[in-house]
């Protein structure tokens, strides 16, 4: 994936590739579309898979209590969460 892709674009690519949403193009995922239930229709197993994929892609560790409805509501909220995590100094020592 190109380095200059926005976090939101990278997340959309991850959603399609890692969750095997065959037939769905990343550009067809709306930033505000709910990820779970209505919208993209993901479920709790997808949430686990998404955490693993995000941890690998962005080199961060996500604690289970962070996987809340707020951060994982949509691509937009997830991108804001990831950007926030990447900017905090706290993360420096957990990156590997």
């Amino acid at each position, binding site marked *: 994936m190109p380095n200059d892709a926005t976090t939101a674009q990278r997340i959309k690519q991850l959603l399609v590739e890692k*969750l095997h*949403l*065959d*037939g769905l193009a990343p550009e067809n995922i709306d930033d505000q579309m709910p990820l779970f239930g209505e919208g993209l229709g993901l479920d709790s*197993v997808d949430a*686990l*898979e998404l955490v*693993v994929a995000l941890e*690998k892609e962005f080199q961060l560790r996500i604690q289970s209590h962070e996987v809340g409805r707020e951060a994982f509501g949509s691509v937009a909220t997830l991108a804001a969460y990831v950007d926030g995590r990447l900017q905090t100094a706290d993360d420096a020592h957990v990156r590997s």
Partner: protein
Amino acid sequence: MCGAERADHASLDIVVTGLGAVTAYGWGVESLWSGLRGGTGAIARFERFDATRHRTRLAAEVPTSPEEGRFARRASFADRFAVASAREALAMAGLPGAPAGPSTGIFFGSSTGGMLESERFYERFLRDPRRRARPGLLASQQLNGPGDAVAREIAAEGPSETVSSACASGAMAIGAALRALRRREVDVALAGGSDALCQLTYAGFNALRSVDDRPSRPFRADRAGLSLGEGAGVLVLETRAHAARRGARVLATLAGEAATCDAYHMTTPQPEGQGAAAAMRLALEDAGVEPAEVDFVNAHGTGTPLNDAAEAAALHAVFGDRALTIPVTSTKASIGHLLGSAGAVEALVTVLCLLRREVHPMPSAGEPDAGLALDLVLGRPRRLQRAVCALSTNLAFGGANAALVFRRAEAA
């Protein structure tokens, strides 16, 4: 089952109205039937995972699937075989898909469910220094995965039962469906089984030295073991009244079932086939059929020296002199041993043979074992002058035996 209960069942015919299958011949019943008729087996070099460490590289592997939709993205192979077979069976029965509702039950057999995907998860988990692997690989790990996937697919809200009694599972699941229909717990049952090859199965049968390094040759003098296979089979079963009300085409009657246990050894069948013979007799009795009325037998016929000898002994015990002349085939000779779904696919094939008035052949390689004294159908299909009643048998590890009796639709 007591005599009074049997008599009560006589008035409640259970019929087969739909069939669906996924086997090494392909996705669908017609690919299975044309493959079996052709007499060229589908047992070939196994490619899905590296089997080079094992005694044999052979198996009957299901080919790449057609488009299955989004459901398949996280489903195990076993779940996908099951759902594809259920969809086909429902379509043949002329039943709508979802919602099937509370009067439809699911009765499935499986030996390993989503084991292959679990193995893949742990392989990745153990190899990744940070212990990361796709959790979704574990989503369909349980043995009840295939049956439950079918229930979700069609929103069947009746009982969803999974039987796991080794290689008798599929037949026993069909037996469980028959009993539930007779008790009027459900109007419609999807009964069958699904299993996918996994490392556990492949390594296990190799370690037991139960596999032949050539395609298996059931009941032949030079037989040296079974060939593994995978796939699913589903039968739509319903009461005759229910089928009649909706104008469904009846393919056959599921007339009787029975199961017994040798209670003898973990893997070896009782040598005289006493338990297997008992299951056959009880199933015929349940069906109200005399041994003399049976037109052909779809045998368990694994191709192991011990199974085939015990099964032949059981057939002679049940059929007497007729065992010398009753046509016997083994579906496993062509599509391998499907373990938890073997009994289901073989039941379905038995229905096809009755419908089309011919017994499918086994590939012709190997001389019949004269000591077993059976009339084997080899190389070419055997046309039947009388195709009214058929027996399908399964003899499993653990000594589990199951037998199913089918009758031609118009003969019921």
